[in-house]
């Protein structure tokens, strides 16, 4: 009987090289950041000033929180399209509780704590629903969260128009709006909040069994199940945390706008998913980190800000951002093909 001998390692070296390059999107992102910043600075010298950079940094915090939440879901090979709608919903619910213009707890000492609780609770609630549908009814995440997005964004508009005559809820107490730009000592409150989320998420992903389970499920759910991973519970937890992060992010955005509005961040969805992909969180699951989320958010925000600075029209901004997200997605697909051999 003719038998096969070892396959000659023809492509092996080449494949490994490409895989290594692709598996470190951090370098690409940092390189792009530097090049882009220099290019914009050449055009508008004020761009590299400390004021601008710290402003960029402060402005990206709520986006980062939302992207970290999204990363949890993407690592288990899911996607949550409902985050922005969830942000709008939590914004109007919490706003209706806190507003001085006829809020449920207007002028009460409880207004701000209850408002903050509403952001977290309703965010988690929408996430929990998504997670249960995905894990237990085995619905595709795309459809579940797309439907939740429509439902929740509709509900948010209905709620706010039922609660007030105009579309948005103003008159939020200053104790709450301080979250947006207030400081504790010399440090921005939003920064402290974000750092807490970043540290907890990073620790959770890298140092706990829960984090490792996310990666295992994202790569191969059947194998995870056979290996004794509580797959469904972990999936539900990822979606719930994603919703909670959306609520937290909405809290900072609402505080900054001093307004509860159902359309709080309705155009932010692609920024959220795009940031994650740019940083190297895979659309196909099983890969991602808090650092990746941060780099993605940083690059996208700097690009956005730079083009605002130059004064380019929105449509140029949209095209450039879209092109970069598309490229990142292409790289992601290539990485999958060359590195992880998953087809």
């Amino acid at each position, binding site marked *: *009987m003719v038998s096969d001998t*070892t396959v000659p390692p023809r492509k092996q070296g080449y494949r490994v090289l490409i895989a290594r390059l692709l598996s470190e999107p951090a370098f690409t992102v940092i390189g792009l950041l530097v090049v882009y910043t220099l290019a914009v600075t050449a055009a508008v010298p004020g761009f590299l000033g400390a004021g601008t950079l710290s402003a960029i940094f402060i402005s990206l915090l709520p986006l980062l929180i939302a992207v970290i939440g999204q990363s949890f879901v993407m690592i288990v090979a899911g996607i949550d399209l409902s985050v922005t709608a969830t942000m709008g919903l939590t914004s109007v619910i919490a706003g209706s509780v806190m507003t001085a213009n006829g809020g449920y707890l207007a002028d009460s000492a409880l207004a701000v704590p209850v408002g903050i609780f509403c952001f977290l609770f309703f965010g988690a609630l929408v996430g929990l629903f998504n997670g249960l549908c995905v894990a237990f009814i085995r619905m595709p995440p795309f459809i579940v969260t797309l439907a939740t997005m429509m439902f929740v964004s509709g509900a948010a508009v209905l709620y706010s128009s039922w609660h007030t005559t105009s579309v948005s809820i103003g008159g939020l107490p200053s104790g709450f709006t301080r979250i947006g730009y207030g400081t504790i000592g010399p440090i921005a409150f939003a920064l402290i909040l974000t750092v807490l989320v970043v540290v907890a998420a990073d620790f959770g992903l890298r140092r706990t069994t829960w984090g*490792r389970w996310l990666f295992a499920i994202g790569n191969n759910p059947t194998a995870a199940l056979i290996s004794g991973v509580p797959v469904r519970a972990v999936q539900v937890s990822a979606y719930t945390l994603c919703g909670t992060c959306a609520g937290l992010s909405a809290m900072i955005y609402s505080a900054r706008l001093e307004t509860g509005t159902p359309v709080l961040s309705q155009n932010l969805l692609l920024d959220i998913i795009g940031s994650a992909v740019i940083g190297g969180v895979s659309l196909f699951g099983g890969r991602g980190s808090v650092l990746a989320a941060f780099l993605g958010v940083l690059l996208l925000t700097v690009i956005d800000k730079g083009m605002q600075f130059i004064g380019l029209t929105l449509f140029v901004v949209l095209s450039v951002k879209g092109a970069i997200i598309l490229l990142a997605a292409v790289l992601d697909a290539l990485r999958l093909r060359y590195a992880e051999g998953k087809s």
Partner: protein
Amino acid sequence: MDAKAVPLFECSGINKSFSGTQVLFDVGFAIKAGEFLGVIGENGSGKSTTMNIIGGILRPDSGEMRLNGDAYVPTQPNDAMEAGIGFIHQELNIFGNMSVADNMMIGRYPRRWEKLPFINHRAKRLATAEALKRVGLDVSPDAPCWSLAPGERQLLEIAKVVSQNPRMIIFDEPTTSLTEPECRRLFEVIADLQAQGIGIVYISHVLSDVQRLSDRIVVLRDGHAVKSTATRDLTRDGIVEAMVGRPVSQLYPDVPPLGERRPVIEVQGLTQPRVLKDVSFSIAAGEVLGVAGLMGSGRSELARILFGLDPHDGTGTISYEGAPFDPSPRDCVSKRMAFLTEDRRHEGLLLTQSLTTNLELVHLSGAGSGAHVPVDRKQQVSNAEDVAHRLRIKARDLVRLPAKSLSGGNQQKVVLGKWLVDAPRLFILDEPTRGIDVGAKEEIYRVIAELAGQGLAVMLISSELEELAGLSHRIMVMSRGMNVGVFERQDGGFDRAAIMARATAADVEAA
């Protein structure tokens, strides 16, 4: 040994039904400590179901299992492992995105504090290194798993099981994606495990492996355990007979006699840089030309070039039915060439479509039809019926049932059959029986012989020399992209040793 009194593992009277169809009937067998038990059977005979029951993935409808004499009732995969039964699945449960250590410890991370889910990374690496050593796998615990070769992944999986101190390990088709040296390595590890008193349950299609390695063989057929015998008391024919359920007088049909030699395809000096070098041969109508050679010898590449799937920009000529020919897949189909590719599941079959649609696929893109020609539904169905009849495809409904509802052997026939709708004159078959069971193989052999008898020229590429010897008129041996010799059938057979020597000789020279 007192293990003789109480077997290591024993199951009896196991029944199992899926949605009303019974797939296991009173299955039972036993295994002793350190014993190698081969489990064989055709596809659908109930091997996987049985093993999944033992592994705790499925629950039996009735029956009992005992481990060292104690009742064993697993309800989930973890229970099996905790009881000491490891399971190496055919589809390896590897997480390519994670490190070796993570793969090893995924379900049982060492924790920093008992009650909190924080991983002790040091303990994780240490335990992993220890387990890797036990199977002799020399990779870093921190290496990402996507960088491992298939054999290393297999060993990793074994290490994962071994590190949990199993008493018995089930291997489900462990060699399908392994190279020869990797297989040898695997067998060494298994022998070592046996020596440690671990019972081995080994499922495989590769009868020669099972015959060589096992102490005892259990044969499953249609959900019944039809044989459980010491391996030394079994002949190969005896095994096959038990699997197929009828005497195997002859697995291979008679090779039809060749009449006047009328070449269908003639290849002269075909050269393609780094792939083929000066390959010449011809195939006549009614002739089966076997192509032997090691993997990477250029067999499949030759076929792909002939069919225009890979580019040919080197020298050499191809003439088809007497006329020079520059192949492209569309041309080939319209000139009545047919090609059964190696990777049938991905390239050959629309699994969710009906048989009629599948059978019609080639015809639709073939001679005389274009995007503008309306599809004649009646003609389609009658074509399909005709082919199904010729190939004896067993299907209840040609129009509505999806291809995936068929058994493996019948799926194979559909892939073959879709090329027959247009009555081809040359049929290239690349590994037509890879991964299918004996019964289905036999059917395919019969079809090949019949087609040749009807005047088709057949180019048969196979890794199994036995298969080539059973079906071919002549065998061309390839090595390193060259035709290194053509053997003629003599006295109803071939000199297999000579062919083997020729196929490997060039390789040795090269090395």
